[in-house]
């Protein structure tokens, strides 16, 4: 009896999992269907780009600058007396462009924008606004999902590039002010071993991370439970799920892009 219940529980878990994945994929497909209509709704897209992108810059500014500073100072501490000073710039540049910049901006955005997306959609569902769109003959995927998806697709890579630049500036500040490494040494170190792929890999990753945050944010918003608690749980779930998926996706992309 216990074994039968256990097998039933496992089976239910698998079925629920497949259903959830199916729903996430359907959200993505339904959203993609309206991308060709994007030119008809520039206002909706620009509004989301401002909310997702421009409004995230202050937070990203602080996190990126300090991450760059920490990465550089750690590189110097670890390499001290082992390699030349210029390799501090090399290590910082490689770390920031390939991993730290894209991952950090994605995690920050998952917390700030992914949770806001789930809360907004969950609240709209609760207040029957989504039904109101449908009843008025307006598909919510066209007016709510597509503009947000395109805003994520454009702003997450932009923010990643900004984050990269800010982190490198943070590294430079720490070199000049605390580590007695000149601007010239840091700069030549950055150029040494630099490959264009380092930069592009980060940007390619950011497209995937943006998609993950959008789809999971929208999914958890649509499936938010009733009331304030339901929306609260949905926002927490989207942050947890996005962070996990971003880290897992990062591993596979690292294996694919740098093999």
């Amino acid at each position: 009896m216990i074994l039968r219940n256990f097998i039933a529980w496992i089976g239910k878990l698998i079925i629920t999992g497949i259903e959830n994945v199916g729903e996430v994929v359907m959200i993505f497909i339904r959203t993609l269907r309206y991308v060709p209509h994007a030119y008809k709704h520039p206002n909706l897209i620009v509004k989301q780009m401002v909310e997702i992108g421009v409004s995230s810059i202050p937070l990203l500014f602080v996190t990126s600058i300090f991450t760059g500073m920490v990465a550089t100072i750690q590189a110097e501490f670890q390499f001290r007396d082992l390699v030349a000073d210029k390799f501090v710039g090399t290590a910082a540049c490689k770390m920031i462009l390939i991993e730290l910049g894209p991952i950090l901006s994605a995690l920050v955005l998952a917390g700030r924008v992914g949770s806001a997306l789930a809360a907004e959609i969950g609240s709209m569902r609760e207040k029957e606004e989504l039904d109101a769109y449908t009843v008025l003959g307006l598909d919510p995927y066209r007016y709510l999902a597509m503009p947000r998806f395109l805003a994520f697709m454009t702003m997450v890579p932009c923010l990643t590039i900004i984050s990269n630049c800010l982190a490198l500036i943070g590294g430079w500040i720490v070199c000049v002010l605390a580590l007695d490494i000149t601007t010239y040494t840091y700069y030549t170190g950055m150029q040494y071993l630099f490959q264009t792929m380092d930069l592009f890999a980060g940007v390619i990753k950011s497209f995937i991370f943006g998609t993950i945050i959008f789809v999971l944010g929208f999914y958890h918003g649509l499936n938010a439970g009733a009331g304030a608690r339901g929306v609260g749980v949905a926002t927490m779930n989207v942050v947890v799920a996005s962070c996990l998926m971003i880290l897992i996706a990062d591993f596979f992309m690292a294996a694919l892009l740098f093999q």
Partner: protein
Amino acid sequence: MPNVKINPDDVMIELRGLKKSFGRQDVLLDVNLDIRRGETMVIIGQSGGGKSVILKHMIGLLQPDHGTVTVDGVTISSPDFFDTHTIRRKMGMLFQMGALFDSMDTGENIAFALREHHPELSEKQIQETVTEKLKMINLVPEFRTKMPSELSGGMRKRVALARAIALNPEILLYDEPTTGLDPITSDVINDLILDMQSKLGVTSVVVTHDMVSAFKVADRIAMLYKGRIIEVGTVEEIKNTTNPFVHQFITGQRKISVEEEQN
């Protein structure tokens, strides 16, 4: 009671054998109801009894587990039916809490669907329509710049009604239009429901448990009880009903006598 000529044979919305369950909870067991063109049908019943579920079936937001929903001769509950867009263009719905788009002001709320469905209209024409709809719900044009968060409950419902009639629907569905409103504001909403019928000639379906409102706006009243429509009749017929459950509901009694229950 409204005074509009209604042909009893001209059915606008037809529900046949409607069944709906959510998980293990059976909400609708066997709902059969005809709503005539141009009439105001009020569906009454206990809270959580499935009245709003019926309404959502009529506009295609929900699909029945069994049974059919026919709107203006078109069976919209069929799995083969995909043209919900055309049917919904004939219908407008006033949601319980208004469901206004929070990020848009009042004018934008009313104009949004109009702008999307009629790209041929100029901005001037759209603004004229917004003004006209605001006037129909007795609001001044200056109201268009107000955000939903600045509106009271009654105002939100009036603006939501203006949005619902923006596309000139033939059918208006009202989900608990007077719930949460004071008696005077409720009466304003009741008058607007009557106005919509007389000025626009719309078929209306009102879901409510507010009997003052039901008796004022209804041409006919249907009582939903335990997943079934147990009585349909005019206001007078419902007031003089012999059905103990209907009588209990309209008089607001907590219990019904044992003899009545056995009958």
